[in-house]
């Protein structure tokens, strides 16, 4: 047992010789708690984060404006009605284009006859949605219905009454009840001598309208009533032809994240070269520090590209991911992703002096970038400020690129922005890594 103790003390002593690794051992989990805390922090406590939704009000009457105003007052929603660039209100075409482009997940279009619809007991609206983000459109629909019934309180009761009357044909009302309804709900009812109990079947009053209706009782069909009121239609403006929608993101996200782990191995390889003296020998044989580092980049790019391509093929084989329809842009995006992720690996290599440090940096950088960049879970799930921060990570742009290809059916020209940003980031990180590595080599050689 004493030997075990001696051996353990030896490992502790070795560990204590690397203050950066000690720091990372404690800092890494703290950083990860911070990152995941921010990512999931809003959930379960304050409900959903504020959703940005486009709003187009084409209503010629007053109802549309009232609804928009009410929706705009909700904490959960931020309605964007005007184009900041052109300072003009959106129309359904421009809103549809922005949803299709991925700038927003959903748009609410209030049609010209919205006010007429309310007067007829119908809630007419149109939701344009990107179903890659099912949350935003779903929440918008719910909030829209809730707000509409609050804003137009007579909408549901009048529809119900109308429904009842429709379902009961010539059956009359108790005159007192009829008067009360006439007074409170503003509808005109036929005179009758029936009581409310006579009019509404018992089983329906006890709560099971569906069964009552299904069993052929003579009560009103509330489902049909609601369907009559709810004239909100939903249109998927993007991704209609995607065979397996969730897989496009899952495959790309998982592949990008694990590629990051793969390129993290550059650090270990470089450290090994420095410790065994081969890096010095390469310098002695005429290679420069920049060439040594760039060779690692090239190696990682080739390996990473093959890995990503293999993952995509795997996605195709198992989940019918539509890779062959998008082959050219996908291949370009794969190489660009490999380049930018490899440059992340270079930075980790240049910063790490020991393998323990490299492992620490790798976990912090890779997991936090994957979490906030949208590789672990879709970016629409992230809180607003994390979404903003995520744009400084290469993972975000790589994921945007893959989503544009597989979801938005973009060709090569449609991913130029993502490619440009990724390559710019790669150039910056590679230059930094070369500078750091050159200085480090100079220091380590004396």
């Amino acid at each position, binding site marked *: 047992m004493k030997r075990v103790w001696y051996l353990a003390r030896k490992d502790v002593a070795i560990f204590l010789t690397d203050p950066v690794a000690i720091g990372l051992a404690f800092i890494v989990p703290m950083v990860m708690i911070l990152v995941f805390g921010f990512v999931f922090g809003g959930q379960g406590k304050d409900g959903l984060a504020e959703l940005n939704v486009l709003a187009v009000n084409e209503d010629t009457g007053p109802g549309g404006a009232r609804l928009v105003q009410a929706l705009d007052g909700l904490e959960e929603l931020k309605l964007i009605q005007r184009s900041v660039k052109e300072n003009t209100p959106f129309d359904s075409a421009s809103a549809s284009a922005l949803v299709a482009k991925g700038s927003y997940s959903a748009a609410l279009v209030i049609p010209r006859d919205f006010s007429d619809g309310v007067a007829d007991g119908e809630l007419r609206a149109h939701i344009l949605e990107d179903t890659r983000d099912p949350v935003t459109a779903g929440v918008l629909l719910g909030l829209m219905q809730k707000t509409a019934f609050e804003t137009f309180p007579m909408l549901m009761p009048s529809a119900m009454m109308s429904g009842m009357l429709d379902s009961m044909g010539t059956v009359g009302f108790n005159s007192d009840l009829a008067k009360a309804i006439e007074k409170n709900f503003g509808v005109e009812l036929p005179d009758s001598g029936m009581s409310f109990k006579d009019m509404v079947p018992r089983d329906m009053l006890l709560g099971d309208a569906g069964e009552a209706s299904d069993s052929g009782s003579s009560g009103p069909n509330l489902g049909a009533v609601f369907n009559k009121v709810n004239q909100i239609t939903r249109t998927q403006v993007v991704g209609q032809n995607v065979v397996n929608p969730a897989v496009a993101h899952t495959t790309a996200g998982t592949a990008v994240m694990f590629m990051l782990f793969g390129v993290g191995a550059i650090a270990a390889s470089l450290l090994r070269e420095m410790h*065994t*003296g*081969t890096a*010095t*020998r*390469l310098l002695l*044989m*005429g*290679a420069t520090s920049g060439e040594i580092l760039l060779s690692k980049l090239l190696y990682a790019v080739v390996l990473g590209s093959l890995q990503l391509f293999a993952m995509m093929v795997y996605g195709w084989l198992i989940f019918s991911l539509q890779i062959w329809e998008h082959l050219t842009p996908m291949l370009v995006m794969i190489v660009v992703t490999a380049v930018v992720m490899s440059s992340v690996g270079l930075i980790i290599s240049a910063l790490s002096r020991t393998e323990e440090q490299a492992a620490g940096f790798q976990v912090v950088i890779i997991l936090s970038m994957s979490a906030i960049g949208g590789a672990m879970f879709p970016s629409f799930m992230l809180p607003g400020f994390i979404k903003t921060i995520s744009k400084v990570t290469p993972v975000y742009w790589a994921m945007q690129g893959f989503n544009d290809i597989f979801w938005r059916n973009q060709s090569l020209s449609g991913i130029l922005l993502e490619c440009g940003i990724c390559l710019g980031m790669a150039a910056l990180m590679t230059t930094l890594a070369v500078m750091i590595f050159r200085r480090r080599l100079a220091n380590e050689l*004396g």
Partner: protein
Amino acid sequence: MSANAVEVRNVSKRFGEVHALNEVSLTIKQGDFFGLLGPNGAGKTTLMRVLCGLLAPDQGDVRILDSSLERWQIPFAVGVVPQDIALYDMLSARKNLELFGKLRGLTGKKLETRIDFVLDLIGLSDRAKSRVKGFSGGMKRRLNLGVALLAEPRVLLLDEPTVGVDPQSRASIFELLESLHGQGVTILYTTHYMEEAERLCRTIAILDHGKILGVGSLEELITMVKTPRFVRLILRSDSEKFPALAGVASKQSGLRVDYVPTSQDGLAEILTQLADFHGAQRVEVVSPNLEMLFLELTGRELRDA
């Protein structure tokens, strides 16, 4: 063209408070086998790194084959054998040579020819396709040396190339170096083994604490030794009491007892007197050597420094 292959003028290098090199000057003539002898930490590797261009001196300059040395720019005609075995373990001997040869600018047929030549020279032709990982320490050392020979160097810089090598491989490396020297290659060889410097080097510089303490041929350096020849007695064990000889100064260090005569004629007399002593493991006459010179110059023994 200058007759000098390497010229080092007033080179100093400090690491914090440590003077790794302190105004070092030395000249290595073309075709010389030059030994840089000194204990660990003397500054040999630092000087070697300066000569390789891996390290910029704080002051002074270095010329190799008539050219000023720029940092990171190793002249093509200079081969360097680092102290570390700097090879890729998972690659074969040939693949290692191929990689380093290409980095040195060799390609095609010339590269192939040089690789075959070097493999033959270092005795690894039959293991060319084997991974370095499975090589013995001596084989790795030879391959480490072979890499430096790929570009047919006119100057070869070797930083303690026999560290951790078995006697057989050491002898093989010595033969190889002597052969290269015979072909006109200028060699700078750093070592902390006096025997290696004495056997191989035509010119030897003694380096300690970053300073050159003496330079010359072995014979010239030996003449600097003040201690005359003396008799050394090695005791069988600690319990043996060594005999005191009348009129002869003696000095004990562990099992070793040195008897220094007042004149060279006294050597025979000491040997006669010690002949009857049965507690001796060995008795030998010690001639002036580099070890003694180092001791006289620094007050420390080379192996203990």
